[in-house]
């Protein structure tokens, strides 16, 4: 029962903190909505999307970027949660977590899952807005899409935790956000299909291919249309496990000694 209550406590705290930070929730929604309503409207005419998997027909640009924007919410929230870990460490509240009678790997894993659920909550609200904007998925598409997003969120949270473990001060974190979030997002298939990228530059295309965020986007895209992208699944799963292990190692006692 101790493990269950520990997990429940961490999830509840993350939810309470999220609900008390209304600006964080608003910005998490405004960002993808701006991309969807303003950016996509402008680019719709300039970018033609050919028939590519998993789409059965020609699609609007808005429809193309919808999974990428869902992944963007997961990416930003994953990084923001690691920012909150840096804040917790600076403010001292991290010590309460570290001095409870539960193993650190369990605490970290619980935090990753808790943050993933918060991310899914944000994505669900975004998808509701998208629905009223005219972007509708099949009911099972929502179900499979959210499952794919849960896996992608855990991978991205793992990456965020690694960064959070190595960043000692909040001031440094802003720089890391710019060096991680924006390159990951733009050098991916979130905004443009990979074949478009290949037309523009081969080396950029190769970077996109090996970016795990591209796999996260593609896994979500296929799942939203009730298809399974096995390559993307294994990349996200593999990277998720590696990031999780590295995060646990980073938060070991030895790491705190150095801090």
């Amino acid at each position: 029962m101790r493990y269950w209550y520990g997990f429940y406590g961490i999830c509840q705290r993350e939810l309470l903190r999220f609900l008390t930070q209304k600006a964080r929730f608003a910005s998490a929604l405004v960002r993808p909505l701006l991309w969807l309503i303003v950016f996509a409207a402008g680019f719709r005419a300039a970018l033609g999307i050919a028939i590519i998997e998993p789409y059965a027909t020609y699609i609007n640009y808005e429809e193309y970027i919808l999974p990428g924007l869902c992944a963007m919410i997961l990416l930003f929230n994953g990084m923001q949660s690691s920012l909150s870990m840096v804040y917790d460490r600076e403010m001292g509240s991290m010590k309460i977590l570290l001095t409870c009678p539960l193993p650190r790997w369990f605490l970290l894993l619980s935090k990753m899952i808790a943050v993933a659920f918060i991310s899914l909550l944000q994505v669900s609200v975004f998808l509701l807005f998208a629905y009223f904007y005219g972007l509708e998925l099949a009911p099972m598409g929502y179900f499979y899409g959210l499952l794919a997003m849960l896996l992608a969120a855990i991978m991205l949270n793992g990456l965020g935790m690694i960064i959070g473990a190595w960043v000692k001060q909040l001031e440094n974190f802003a720089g890391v956000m710019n060096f991680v979030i924006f390159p990951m997002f733009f050098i991916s298939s979130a905004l443009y299909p990979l074949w478009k990228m290949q037309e523009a530059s081969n080396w950029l295309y190769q970077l996109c291919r090996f970016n795990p965020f591209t796999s996260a986007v593609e896994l979500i895209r296929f799942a939203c249309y009730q298809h399974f992208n096995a390559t993307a699944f294994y990349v996200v799963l593999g990277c998720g496990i590696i990031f999780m292990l590295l995060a646990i190692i980073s938060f070991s006692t030895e790491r705190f000694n150095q801090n």
Partner: protein
Amino acid sequence: MNNNQLLAVQQLSFNYGHKPALIDVSFELPQGMTILLGPNGAGKSTLFSLLTQIYGIQQGDIYFNQISVTKLGYQAMQWLGVVFQQSTLDLDLTIAQNLYYFGHLHGYSRQQSLTKAQPLLMQFELQHRLHEKVRRLNSGHRRRLEIVRALMHQPKVLLLDEPSVGLDPASRQALADVVRDLCREQKISVLWATHLIEEASDADHVLILNQGQLLATGRSHELQNRYQQASLAEVFMVLTSEV
């Protein structure tokens, strides 16, 4: 090691890089109040970080119930209540939410957490403010809440790292009185780290730490007799000026 001692530290040393922070520190914590006296930078917070396993042990060992923490690992934390020098409360949550969170981390349900905290909240006069956000509490009440939280799981050892920082003299005295009452009533061992000599009473056990070295241990009046000084402050001055 004495069988009655719940916490014992043996030949503990710790370095930050090449800079020594603790050098060969050994002591046993008796039941009752123990004052860990040392100036800023003496190594008190490093010792607390080692006792709470935030830092890993580099040299020496720490024993709870005569079992090494290297064997016990995180399970040792169930016997330990800690109040850190820096506040560890979540300011945006209420008193109740902070207590529930801590209770859950120690394996208690919401109701169990409340049941365990209720008598302590009454003792520390916080029972009517359960649903107030911590941000609205003054520093004295925040300290009290941290002690309530540290005692919720009925630990055998309570570690207080400079708990009176930021408190006025009256609040400081009140806090010390409540903690001494707790020692008597609940038979717990308290390690109270401070740089303020006046926080030690004659009956307290005292550890004097300076530049990472434990210079003396004993009851306040015993130390005065041993070093032939009129007060603990003079004992402290004599010992720290020798290093």
